[in-house]
């Protein structure tokens, strides 16, 4: 793996003699040294003495944290490290830890490690530290703090593409806010977090707000919850200061109705003189506030807009590393993570996709493991025993130890995620259906967008004649077009007569050309 070696020389300079001491011991431990010269198994206690960037806390899902505690070390380290390490001076360790936390490679055959890694990379685990969104979080937090301190109402609109950490950041801000109010002795605001997709009617949101803020008042038959809320917020409060209500409305665009009344009324609630709610709306569209709340602009109370931009390559890389940092072993090749970050950032900047691709790459590794021969799955002790008894075959020894997720795994995972199945499907279509696609491509080359089945039939028959394949009749052709329509390759219109049904191509011409280029006949036909 030349890439790894090239990147490390500056760090190696620090530990040149260190390596020499450790090299002898490492042969006994495993073949790790050959694959990753900088990896040295470290005792877990050493890391807690050094000063890492942030304390990696091992988080566990609520289900599984019955017996485990953050301090209990994982099994693999115990097995390998027991009594075999030389004494490493603390100063050297500090220097290394400052630059780059040196960790051993993981053992993918260990089910416990596999589970821990997959959990670390799963979409549902929320990391304790939300990196790369500090600026946006601070803005929201400052806004909320201001509103609570001044006991004024306000509205905020958070927007961004899916997978940019909006909901995650809102969770964090909520928790920080609660802590802050407790520290400063202010009254804790009532929290209402809801996802607008769970509302049957869009106006149910008002009854939810009402039930949160005032538990005694119920909406009678005549006054709607909205009216009640408006009444409450327009009058001076009789009792002493009421609680502020913090409303976080996720997927705000589900509230958009034809007359845009609900959304408008919701934001107007914050403009009423004695309003006590702080509204944070989360959605995808950047211009939602402009498009759907024009009247607010005239009243000069447009909500503040905070945009969560799509992640860049560096941010994705940082987040992935942050997630993997708590694990005491190296799982991915650095360059594999970089490739993943680069590809995802170029395409959408969606963090979920990056996490999915990483998990997919781990599955590639697992698949490789399952196919590898059994020799490499033996423990070192057994290997030593066999090595003494019989001379192991040379080709077996030369096989690489399968440990880290390499760049080829990542490449396969990325191609599986991003490649559309169109090309594969076209290549495996039966012959006549391929000819139909071919004739459609030829017909639409001149800039025409759609045609009829009759025209398609003519072109199809011509192509068949040119190669002496007997063409099928119009009825059969029409049923094949229906099959292609079901698969999403063609688009078939409606008509009373079969011949006049309109046909359009739904896939790219290049896809068809690329898929069929292996067959000489189609190549010449499509030129």
């Amino acid at each position: 793996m030349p890439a790894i070696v090239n990147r490390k020389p500056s760090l190696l300079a620090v530990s040149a003699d260190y390596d020499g001491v450790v090299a002898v011991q490492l042969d006994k431990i495993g073949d790790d040294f050959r694959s990753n010269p900088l990896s040295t198994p470290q005792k877990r206690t050493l890391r807690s003495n050094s000063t890492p960037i942030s304390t990696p806390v091992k988080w566990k899902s609520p289900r599984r944290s019955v017996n485990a505690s953050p301090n209990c070390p994982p099994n693999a380290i115990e097995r390998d490290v027991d009594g075999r390490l030389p004494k490493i001076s603390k100063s050297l360790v500090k220097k290394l830890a400052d630059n780059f936390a040196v960790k051993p490679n993981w053992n993918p055959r260990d089910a416990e490690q596999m589970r821990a890694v997959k959990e670390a990379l799963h979409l549902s685990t929320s990391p304790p530290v939300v990196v790369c969104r500090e600026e946006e979080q601070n803005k929201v937090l400052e806004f909320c703090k201001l509103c609570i301190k001044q006991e004024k109402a306000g509205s905020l609109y958070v927007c961004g593409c899916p997978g940019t950490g909006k909901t995650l950041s809102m969770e964090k801000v909520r928790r920080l806010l609660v802590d802050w109010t407790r520290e400063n002795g202010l009254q804790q605001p009532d929290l209402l977090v809801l996802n607008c997709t769970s509302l049957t009617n869009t106006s149910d949101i008002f009854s939810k707000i009402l039930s949160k803020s005032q538990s005694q008042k119920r909406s009678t038959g005549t006054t709607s919850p909205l009216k009640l809320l408006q009444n409450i917020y327009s009058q001076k409060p009789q009792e002493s200061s009421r609680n502020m209500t913090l409303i976080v409305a996720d997927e705000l665009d589900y509230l958009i109705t034809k007359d845009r009344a609900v959304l408008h009324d919701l934001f107007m609630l914050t403009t009423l003189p004695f309003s006590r709610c702080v509204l944070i709306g989360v959605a995808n569209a950047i211009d939602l506030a402009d498009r759907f709340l024009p009247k607010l602009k005239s009243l000069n109370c447009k909500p503040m807009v905070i945009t969560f931009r799509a992640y860049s390559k560096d941010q994705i890389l940082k987040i992935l590393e942050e997630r993997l940092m708590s694990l005491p072993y190296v799982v991915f090749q650095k360059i594999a993570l970089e490739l993943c970050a680069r590809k995802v950032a170029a395409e959408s900047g969606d963090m979920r996709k990056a996490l999915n691709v990483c998990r997919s790459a781990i599955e590639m590794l697992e698949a490789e493991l399952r196919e590898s021969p059994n020799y490499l799955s033996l423990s070192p002790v057994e290997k030593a025993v066999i090595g003494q008894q019989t001379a192991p075959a040379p080709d077996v020894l030369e096989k690489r130890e399968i440990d880290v997720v390499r760049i080829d795994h990542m490449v396969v995972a990325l191609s599986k995620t991003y490649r559309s199945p169109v090309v594969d499907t076209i290549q495996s279509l039966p012959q006549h259906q391929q000819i139909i696609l071919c004739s459609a491509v030829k017909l639409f080359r001149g800039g025409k967008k759609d045609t009829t089945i009759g025209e398609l039939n003519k072109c199809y028959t011509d192509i068949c004649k040119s190669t002496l394949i007997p063409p099928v009749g119009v009825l059969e052709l029409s049923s094949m077009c229906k099959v292609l329509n079901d698969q999403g390759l063609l688009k078939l219109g409606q008509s009373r007569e079969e011949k006049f049904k309109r046909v359009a191509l739904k896939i790219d011409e290049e896809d068809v050309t690329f898929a069929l280029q292996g067959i000489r006949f189609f190549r010449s036909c499509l030129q």
Partner: protein
Amino acid sequence: MGRENPAAEEALCLLRSRLCDPNFIFKPLSDSPDSNYSKLKFMISSSITEACNNSVLLLGPRGSGKVAVLELVLRDLLLEYPDMISVIKLSGLLHSEDVCAFKEIARQLCVENQLLFSKMASFDDNSQFMIAMLRECGLAHKTIVFVLDEFDLFAQGKQRLLYSLLDAMQSVTSQAVVIGVSCRLDADQLLEKRVRSRFSHRKLLFLPPSSEDLQRLMEHILSLPIDSSLPQDYAVEFNAKLQNVLADKRFKVIIDTYMNSDSTANHLLGFLFRAVSNMKLENGFLTLENFEAALSNVQRQPKLESLKDCSIVELYILVCMKRLEVKEQNSYNFNSMMKEYKSIHDSLRTPDYYSRSVCLRAFEHLLQRELISFTDKRGQNQSVEFHPVKLLVSFHELHQGLKSYRSCPAILQKLMAG
């Protein structure tokens, strides 16, 4: 009547029942580690054992065995992990409406867990129930597998069901697997951005079997088991004869012709069923003729059969009309057709020249048989001779018909070609 051959009858029953059982058919396709069966099984079982949520999409043309393989996987997993899986099945044709879908989910969950289901429950109640059940099952280490058939139909409208399901899978407390089955290749492009972002882009493509796979599949289905209730020597001889048929070149041609228009596994099974049903019970062996008969049964051409019954006059009329169409005359009627007929007669000196009244009679006959028809329904008052007509058989079918006609004059063939 023929000799009663109980062994042959039993063999026939066995073969027919095999062809109707999807579990039997797709088992050999699933044995390799590379197949969709093992990939799907590994995915679901790792989600169960590692308690992480997953979503996958099964894509492929209709009849390629997606639901069959899925059923196989689920059945095996239910045997391996009893009480750890519950399966909820939804279909896009029935439950694409959000309200219906949640009601059905709640109903199935109630049935699984022996709870009482109330039809009066509102949409809100049902969705709260589903989320609560997901949480409970997550705590109990039970995985819920959602199977969404016709997935592309769920992507119509607001996609609330998909969003709620996939969003529920984002939380740590729930343990679920969502499997979508669709025949549209771009099913995931139909999803909204935020739903697509929550969907892990795993896709399993179900491609039609390759020719080696087809060969193996046919051997697997049609070979009789040696150690069963059938007499052993009969079974051995049957298998030997079957091998001969399968290795025959003509058989390969038959299969290629048949699979040329639709190469899914389901299509092949229909063909095999017909062939097996053609098996003669007297000798009780499958022969090549069975397959040939099945092919001709399947590829029926009703227009060709009509052409075979036509008289020579009618054939002449059809050929003349074809020539007129080839000359790009957009509309022609009986009179122009007669002109063409005359010109052919004059140039080629055909022996049979029929009078106008005979031709008119034949023309009306063709109209009744629907081998030709009027181009539009208006102006029925016009006499038959002036009405524009068109051919209802394609040139290819006409050509085939002439070729297979019992005593077609050579001149007609020449006229067709030129």
